[in-house]
């Protein structure tokens, strides 16, 4: 057995470092651009408009009615799905190379390798919170507000744990398996279409050649998170007990995997770079 010269400090003790990394990411990302923060909203806005046009107008994809009884509006419904998805997608894409890009630092100073990864996720979370704010404003404009909004923090906390854990696991494994980035890109693209974001889940056949496709799509963790957010924010319904179980379970599983990956592969990462 061996004991290293490292402070025995918890994740909580490193919150200030994580926040510093997040600030660094935010500042360096928008420094030198005239529009600054506005840029961070350009990409999701462009996605929203494209998808609204293609899937809402060209392909005639409808949206379920609002929780207040008004007829549904595709773009708003789509936005409620895209915001959590974008958080998941961008958090993973941005954090994957963080260990490698902070390599010089990790070899010269000790700090836990999760700090820059979680810092990157935190920076994305800040942008995501702005998008959630915009979603709220839009929903309020449609008069679609309800007491179920109070459940939002209970949905958000496990979702952050889930996204942070997945990002952490992938970012650490990315050092050991250098082509994980390519695989992840493909997997994320597949997952996007396997998650009911641009379509309603009841549009897919329940069974196809004996495979229960709809149930399978419903099992995917992002389906659970996206669907329950839409329920409580758009449809103003309380998600079912099984949804809540899914929300908690996926967060717990992801956190457990991240813990294993970090303790087995993340502690000596300065040597692996």
């Amino acid at each position, binding site marked *: *057995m*061996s*004991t*290293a*010269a*490292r*402070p025995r*400090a918890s994740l909580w*003790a490193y919150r*200030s*470092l994580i*926040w*510093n*990394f997040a*600030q*660094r990411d935010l*500042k*360096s990302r928008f*420094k030198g651009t005239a529009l600054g923060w506005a840029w961070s909203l350009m990409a999701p806005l462009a996605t929203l408009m494209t998808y609204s046009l293609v899937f809402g107008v060209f392909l005639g994809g409808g949206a379920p009615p609002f929780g207040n009884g008004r007829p549904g509006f595709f773009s708003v419904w789509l936005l409620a799905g895209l915001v959590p998805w974008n958080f998941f997608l961008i958090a993973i894409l941005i954090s994957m190379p963080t260990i490698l890009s902070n390599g*010089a*630092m*990790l*070899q*010269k*100073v*000790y*700090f836990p390798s999760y700090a820059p990864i979680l810092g990157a996720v935190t920076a994305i979370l800040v942008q995501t919170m702005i998008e959630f704010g915009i979603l709220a404003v839009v929903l309020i404009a449609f008069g679609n507000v309800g007491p179920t909004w109070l459940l939002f923090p209970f949905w958000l906390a496990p979702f952050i744990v889930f996204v942070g854990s997945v990002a952490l696991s992938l970012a650490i494994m990315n050092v*050991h*398996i*250098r*082509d*994980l980035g390519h*695989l992840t890109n493909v997997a994320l693209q597949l997952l996007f279409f396997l998650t009911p974001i641009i379509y309603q889940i009841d549009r897919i056949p329940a069974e196809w050649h004996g495979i229960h496709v709809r149930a399978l799509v419903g099992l995917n963790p992002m389906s659970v998170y996206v669907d329950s957010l839409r329920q409580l924010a758009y449809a103003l319904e309380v998600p079912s007990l099984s949804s809540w179980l899914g929300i908690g379970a996926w967060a717990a599983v992801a956190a457990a995997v991240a813990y294993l990956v970090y303790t087995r592969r993340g*502690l*000596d990462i*300065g*040597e692996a770079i």
Partner: protein
Amino acid sequence: MSDYAIRAQNLSKRFWLHGERHTSLKQRFVRGKLPKGHEFWALKDATFEIERGSTFGLMGQNGSGKSTTLKVLAGIYRPTSGSVDVHGRVSALLELGAGFHGDLTGRENIRLNGAILGLTGKQISGAMDQILDFAGIGEFIDLPVKIYSSGMYVRLAFAVAVSLKPEILMVDEVIAVGDEEFQRKCFDHLFDLRKRGTTIVLVTHSLSLIRDMCDKAMWLDHGEIRKLGSAIEVADAYIADVNEREFQAHHVGSDEAPGAGESKRIGSGEVRVTSVDWLDGKGKPSPVLLAGDPCTIRMHYSAREPVSHVVFGLGFLHESGVNVSGPNSGRQGSWALEAGNGHVDFAIDELLLQPGTYQVTTAVVDRGRTFDYADREFDLHVRGRGDQEPGLTRMPGTWKDPVTESGGPDATMLAQEDSRAR
């Protein structure tokens, strides 16, 4: 409170050396799993303690495991086996500015580095003025560090590392960069930190730094502790070993030397110098002579026929081309030599030459007639003990106590204070 800052027990660190690493899935599929490579112990079973408030020097040749040890102590590497206890907040200066991000301003980088060291925002704000003052880079502090000159970068990095009140400071030889003035400032600051009770671990090749700054030192050789003890002892043992090793290296290569330059010889040839031996204080042949020690230069000669008058001479030419000295036996008269082989010794009580390489010329002459002249044929290596003065030779002499000739305005006051202190 314990009396040590760092305690290492049976500390070992192993690395796996891979010729080629399969770090992609594609490679793993195509070529299968690689054997583990061979192991390399950068540090083997090292046990030592560093007292609180002391300065500890780590020395050894390149690749001896100094930097690995420092990284293990700093927590960057985890030891393969053994344990290390560290009491106090560590600030490691392994590379200046390693924690800097080019797009952030100096001030923002100070905050980031402070957070890495585990300081709270409040503590960092408290140290901010001192850092700005020490770095002395003016309004650049609010500009991104990527536009800094390398000098400003180094200044800021050093200022951050030493001003955030580390309890234990680990320094690799990084401070050997920067201009003379800044280096001096750095060393002054290190001395200051030491005085205030900061534990310092210093990796250096500079023996004088070890002697001047360190209380204790550890000499590492191929990952193992060669010697651990007071800094002066360890430094002496180290330099003795380096000299010894150079001795061996020269000894192996010296067989082919004699007679090699004979064709360049000038002179009638009745007497020829065949070789020159450098004898140390004990009369034993040595490839190097130690500055300040007694020694003997032995010239072996071969006389073809008896010669009635000869004078031997030596000439020392420094590698810079300066003719340093040319002693000859003429002042002591001349000798008659019988035919055959023999030697003549030039005994030196105290070698005044400073460390360096000298080309030695030998001459055998008689009043205007040259028997043998070997122009710069022999090499003399002079080594020091580390306490080197500038110049080619030492100047023998003794310094006397200073004498005050006229008192300044404060002289009486100082004298009073002095007597009170006693």
